[in-house]
């Protein structure tokens, strides 16, 4: 009978005669090179995300990968886990002496799927595992099964053996199940083995996801924002879990994280990778610049739960008068998954999101990725129904109104990465949006189809069609400055500031910017 791989001993102290091979903090680790990439490039349409990235990952390293939103961190991670093919470059795997080289762009037969080894399963079998920003547990399975599904070497996964040697398979099942139970107990979820994964709070879910990947046998673990959207108690747990993985289990870690969370894991790190302008910069932790400090005067910060905050930016002159948009105990699901709101405890009551916006006013919503900011915005817009809670606009409940009636009531929303209507021309777009006056600089674009514009130009058209459209009272903009060039961003920023002296403007801020000053250029 096959052996089930080793256990995570989180509470056992290491024996004193065991030499840990984890390198001392600050020194360059000398482990074997596990992975080397050179010249990795990736562009989405006309937007270049990675521009010749070179990197080297050695055994035993704990790497923190940082960079602004849209700087390509997740893209790089997706490439390293074979979920995405780069446009060009070379990826070398050197594990246990066996080398494998991937050259891009791949050949045409590989694109058709023949003899293509650049797939997630292959990378995992070489020891490279990953976790996801949006966690991705198996929602209809319970927690025990979630971990059990990952354990390798199960005879029962082969249908012939499942039928032919069912007694043996049953015995192995019992071992696997008890191993999963132990794992859950170590994570503090002993009683919750039979709970469905979709009912788990974010903090717990992230722990389970990490345990799942480790149990599956990963030797190199790439973690996509493990601390994002997690409350402080679970942050400590996750950091401790990472410490055990790095120092006791000797895993190599690559952790993507944001500025305000980096300080918590800086103690573990041996290397810092910074992605900027499509290029990667490698630094030692002591030499890397300290993360930008939040310089906002703490005039009016509302906590939204799970580290998201709503900040009011004082606009010169006007004092905010009355509450105009009030969100009260909002809970929103996507399908069966809870997105806006969080479970208190494990599978306990759900706490909704509440905040107040006063008119006039300029507000910034800081939320980590995968917190659910976009879902919250869609709920305010009326594109997704609310499961619980109220949205009051100037005293009236609007949470049951369809989107177009909310527009008549004075709420305008621009979604992130809005693309407008691809098959319409710019002029048709403006007509549709009932634009009153044409903003300057658009005449050459009028006859062009939206699909022929670049991402930044499309974003420009969508934003100006709101700003110059019918009058509104509340304007909600989800990451409006993404993909805009500096000059355009400045123009729109000025317009938004101007509007904020009469109306309510709510902007979501990309998660990795610490300083609010950077948001409006």
């Amino acid at each position, binding site marked *: 009978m096959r052996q089930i791989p080793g256990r995570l001993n989180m509470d056992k102290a290491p024996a004193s005669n065991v030499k840990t091979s984890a390198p001392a903090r600050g020194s360059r680790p000398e482990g074997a090179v596990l992975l080397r990439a050179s010249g990795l490039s990736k562009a989405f349409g006309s937007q270049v995300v990675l521009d010749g990235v070179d990197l080297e990952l050695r055994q035993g390293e704990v790497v923190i990968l940082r960079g602004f939103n849209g700087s390509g961190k997740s893209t790089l991670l997706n490439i390293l886990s074979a979920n995405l093919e780069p446009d060009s470059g070379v990826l070398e795997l050197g594990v246990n002496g066996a080398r494998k080289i991937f050259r891009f762009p791949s050949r045409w037969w590989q694109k058709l799927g023949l003899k293509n080894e650049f797939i997630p399963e292959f990378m995992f079998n070489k020891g490279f595992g990953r976790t996801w920003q949006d966690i991705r547990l198996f929602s209809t399975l319970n927690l025990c099964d979630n971990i059990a599904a990952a354990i390798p070497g199960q005879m029962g996964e082969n249908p012939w053996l499942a039928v032919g040697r069912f007694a043996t398979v049953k015995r192995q099942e019992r071992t696997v199940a008890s191993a999963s139970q132990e794992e859950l107990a170590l994570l503090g979820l002993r009683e919750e083995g039979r709970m469905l994964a979709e009912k788990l709070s974010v903090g717990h879910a992230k722990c389970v996801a990490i345990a799942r990947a480790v149990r599956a046998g990963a030797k190199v673990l790439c973690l996509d924002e493990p601390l994002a959207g997690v409350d402080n108690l679970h942050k400590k747990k996750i950091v401790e879990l990472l410490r055990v993985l790095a120092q006791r289990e000797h895993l190599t870690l690559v952790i993507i994280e944001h500025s305000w969370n980096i300080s918590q894991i800086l103690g573990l790190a041996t290397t810092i990778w910074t992605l900027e302008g499509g290029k990667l910069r490698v630094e030692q932790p002591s030499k890397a610049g300290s993360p930008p400090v939040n310089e906002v005067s703490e005039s009016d910060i509302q906590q939204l739960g799970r580290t998201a905050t709503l900040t009011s930016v004082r606009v010169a002159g006007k004092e905010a008068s009355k509450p105009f948009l009030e969100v009260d105990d909002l809970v929103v699901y996507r399908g069966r998954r809870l997105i806006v709101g969080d479970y208190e405890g494990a599978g306990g009551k759900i706490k909704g999101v509440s905040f107040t916006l006063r008119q006039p006013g300029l507000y910034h919503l800081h939320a980590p990725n995968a917190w659910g900011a976009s879902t919250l915005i869609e709920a305010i817009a009326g594109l997704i129904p609310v499961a619980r809670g109220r949205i009051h606009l100037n005293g009236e409940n609007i949470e049951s109104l369809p*989107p*177009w009636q909310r527009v008549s009531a004075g709420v305008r*929303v621009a979604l992130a990465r*809005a693309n407008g209507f691809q098959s319409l021309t710019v002029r048709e777009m403006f007509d*549709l*949006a009932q634009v009153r006056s044409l903003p300057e600089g658009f005449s050459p674009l009028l006859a062009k189809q939206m699909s022929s514009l670049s991402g930044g130009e499309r974003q420009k058209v969508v934003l100006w069609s709101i700003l110059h459209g019918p009058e509104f009272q509340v304007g909600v903009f989800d990451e409006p400055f993404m993909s805009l060039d500096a000059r355009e961003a400045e123009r729109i920023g000025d317009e938004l500031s101007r509007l904020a002296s009469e109306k309510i403007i709510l902007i979501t801020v990309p998660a990795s910017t610490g300083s609010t000053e950077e948001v409006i250029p």
Partner: protein
Amino acid sequence: MLAIFADGFISGLGTALLAVAFAVVYLPTRVFYIALGGIFAFVPYVVWACLTAGFGVIASFACGIFSGIFFSVLAEAVLHGPLEQRKTAHDGHFVCSLGYYIILIQIVCLIWGTQKKAFRLGADVMTEVGGVRLSLAQFTGAIAAILILTGFYLWVQHSKLGIQFRALADNSRELALAGRNITALRLLAFAISGAFAAASAIMFASDLGFHPYSGLDAVLIAMAAAMVGARWSLFGAVGMGIGIGIVRAQAGFVFSAQWQDPVTFIILIGVLWLQEVFSAKRRLEALS
């Protein structure tokens, strides 16, 4: 040679109407509108009942079109609209559409039985157009189809409502955010779909007769053509529909009338496959 091409072109026009009917609902709502098969089967019976009751030809055809619109709008008002409010997933809409399809077909069977019927309008008279022999039914059907498709194209490109409709097919969420009533526009989409399906059904029924299961293959092929063609635009579906008609006729000539449908399906799958392979640049999709 020309005769086969003409034959294929004309039946392709009928398929194109049906493909547009499917695309007009599929693009804005992503509903796999299989109930269109039920409407396609029902409409000729309405026309036949009107003709038998003594209505004139035009009046009967008009009743047929109205019944198509009615059943289609009913589907959105009672089924797909409410399901959309609850944000039901795609499979739920499909199962509902399947149920509606079954109900429509069974009502036809219950009321009128399963025997094949025909309109008997005396439109089987053969005429000759440009050196090709066509029946009057085929000829008038083709002209009507071309007029309808052209009219639809002009409306969608140039009228205010038409532009909103194109926007709906493109990105219905964005349209809602722009302040347009997409519930009403969705009803319009379903109405147009019903009208086009009815027109197609009448066209096929006038030429070939009808029974409750008559158009099933035609509907399936049209849906496949729509899914392949509609990736480009509403009118990609038209192009594909006509193309399929021509291919089908050629297949019937090369292989035999009986292998027409299987061969057409094989060709369609081939095109679908190639489309997927070459368009999916991000094959291993990584959600951001």
